[in-house]
């Protein structure tokens, strides 16, 4: 066992990368749930985003176009969910599960000719002299633009939910759709937009896995990150900052256990592999002692009676 083989700087830089897909997916789900929609199809939207982004990046040679396509792909799939739950008033849990199964299968079909292909690499942002700062430089200023975008999106979502009228209306719809309807807000339209935002974010998260983190395409490569994102939203009590913390924690322990495995620690690999899930959930359960934060209309079907 040789713990000195773990480079702390590379480790921290690595966990920021590991956390980013989770941040995107969970943030999108957070917005959807704040509007009162429980979309269990995060995993399916992520994997569709992963293959849409991967294929587009390979065909056009532009990773950024790939990310754009991933967002569009995720949003398009979420539109199916929006149609089922908001227009035909189908059960949200069943529709979400179906969305995940459909996404996994459909992405495998789309990705058949992309197995073993290498995608174009997204360049790091050039911060000039900042990059040369010891320790901080490699940790904070050696990443691609999408990672910074993910962090910025957390700030934006937090600010919009807290300080803007649009955010207030979104929260109001999630809190009581009947009351919101009585005040004249378009519940179905607002929820559909929130679902699409969730889909686009999940798509970006998926593409971050297939284009940056892994970078290659294999079937089912999101490997349950969508489910962790769902759990993260609940345990983060629907608060963006807590969600960021949970995502970093999860990313950090994922990275740590990989490093430990590499260093040959005498703990069975299975325990190391499960540790990120267990520790993240434990920490967030403790944090989420104030349970009242769930949107009151979460998962309830809205049907305007008048």
């Amino acid at each position, binding site marked *: 066992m040789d713990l000195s083989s773990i480079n702390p700087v590379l480790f921290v830089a690595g966990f920021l990368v590991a956390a980013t897909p989770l941040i995107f997916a969970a943030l999108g789900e957070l917005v959807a749930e704040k509007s009162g929609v429980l979309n269990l199809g995060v995993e399916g939207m992520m994997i569709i985003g992963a293959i849409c982004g991967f294929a587009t990046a390979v065909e056009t040679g532009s990773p950024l176009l790939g990310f754009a396509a991933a967002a569009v792909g995720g949003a398009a799939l979420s539109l199916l969910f929006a149609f089922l739950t908001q227009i035909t008033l189908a059960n949200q849990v069943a529709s979400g599960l179906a969305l995940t199964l459909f996404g996994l299968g459909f992405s495998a079909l789309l990705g058949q000719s992309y197995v073993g292909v290498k995608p174009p690499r997204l360049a790091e942002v050039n911060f000039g002299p900042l990059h040369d700062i010891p320790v901080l430089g490699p940790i904070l200023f050696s990443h691609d633009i999408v990672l910074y975008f993910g962090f910025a999106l957390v700030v934006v979502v937090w600010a919009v939910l807290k300080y803007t*009228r649009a955010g207030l209306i979104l929260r109001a719809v999630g809190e*009581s759709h009947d009351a919101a309807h009585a*005040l004249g807000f378009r519940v179905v339209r607002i929820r559909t937009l929130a679902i699409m935002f969730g889909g686009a974010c999940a798509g970006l998260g998926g593409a971050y896995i297939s284009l940056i983190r892994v970078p290659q395409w294999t079937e089912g490569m999101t490997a349950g990150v969508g489910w962790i994102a769902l759990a993260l939203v609940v345990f983060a009590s629907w608060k963006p900052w807590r969600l960021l913390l949970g995502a970093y924690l999860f990313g950090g322990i994922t990275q740590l256990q990989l490093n430990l495995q590499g260093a040959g620690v005498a703990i069975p690999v299975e325990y190391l592999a499960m540790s990120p899930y267990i520790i993240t959930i434990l920490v967030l359960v403790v944090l989420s002692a104030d349970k009242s934060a769930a949107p009151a209309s979460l998962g309830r079907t809205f049907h305007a009676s008048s």
Partner: protein
Amino acid sequence: MNPPLLALSGLTKAYPGVVANDDVSLTIAPGEVHALLGENGAGKSTLVKMIYGLVKPDSGVMRMHGTLFSPQEPRAARAEGVGMVFQHFSLFDALSVAENIALGMENAPRLGVLSQKITEVSEAYGLPLSPDRIVGDLSAGERQRVEIIRCLLQDPKLLIMDEPTSVLTPQEVEILFKTLRKLSAEGTAILYISHKLEEIRALCDSATILRLGKVVGHCTPSETSARDMAEMMVGSTLKTPLRADKTPGGVLLELRGLKAKSPSAFGMPLRDISVQVRAGEVLGIGGVAGNGQDELLAALSGETLSAKDMVWFKDQDIGPLGPTARRALGVLTAPEERLGHAAAPDMSLTENAMLTGAVRENLVRGGMLNWPAARRFAEKIIQAFDVRTPGPGNAARSLSGGNLQKFVIGREVLQRPEVLVVNQPTWGVDASAAAAIRQALLDLADNGAAVIVISQDLDELMEISDRFAALNEGRLSEPRPAQGLTVDEIGLMMGGAHGMEVAHV
């Protein structure tokens, strides 16, 4: 003459199978307090929803100040100066007072500025309210103030109020009326919907009466008796429940220092309740909603078990017994919530009759269900209580609120209870059905049962109770003979005005 503030002519709105409004016309002048009267399903709510832009009329025109007024959505109606205070509050529990008010405004200012305005307006109208509080923590009266202030901040020309007093104590009602009179004096017209005829007589300048979607008459409430108005609403002569003179028998149910925690986090614990109920007696229990009514019913039905020596039926301590054991003894209850508590919404009436009637009506033998007997029992309830439904095979959900209420009360009454506890027996039920339910409860008492009626309708309690007590913060006041109690005394028993002050006019 100036054109009226609002003139409706020939408004018609049909839903599949029912014409909710048929050729309705009425006019409201600035500063007028206009009452809209009618039974459940008479079309009052549909009419005000059309004025507020939530529903579009099929035909007919609305004019405001003589110009055509056809709001496509509530936003447009609000822009024209129409405000509405809803029957079921349209508030968001998890948001603060200021956020709730901002949601109902078109051009909401920044929260800081808005909070200051809320404080100003609330003081001007004697409705104190702190803008930072979370609405979920407010009492019903305070929630209503949030709605009213939300409307007032937009300088409404017409304020629509849908059954505003059903959740208030008499003192709070008085304060609300002072506020409304002040508004009316300033030129704001008020369209006021209520079932409570005495309130309308005290407050309103004119009234329009709807029956089955049609206007059946206008009157001046201060010059018309409540009885005449009720008969115009119903379209037939109204029977007042009769009660025979009687002397109460022995004590059937006794509570000795009953204490119980509330099963829900926001509930009210019961604190040291002691009372005796005798055979042949109706005990009325009033109080503002949320002061322990649901908890008291649960403690009496056996849904929450009590410690030893707290609940006695005749000579038996029934505190530790569950609902089925209590039913077998003859202690029956009918809770307030019709769908989901008193009845299972998606089960048929036969199945619902089976659910509470199984023990006393012998509908179960050796664990096997006796369907023919259950159907006969359900049919008996339907017939005896005039429940309007195609048959006992229909789902409980398909009945209108009033009809289902008749069914769930009838189901208990027909099981020959010795003690019957009902919560809000005529809630949302129209006048003639309410009279029938009250008569059934009185008949039950005349036949020697002890009846406890928990209700927020004081007129109802005064009409049928022998003794009256009030729940306030989980404590029960000393019961007093109902005859001769004044509204002021009742209000004080219910806990006064909850810190509200009278408008500084």
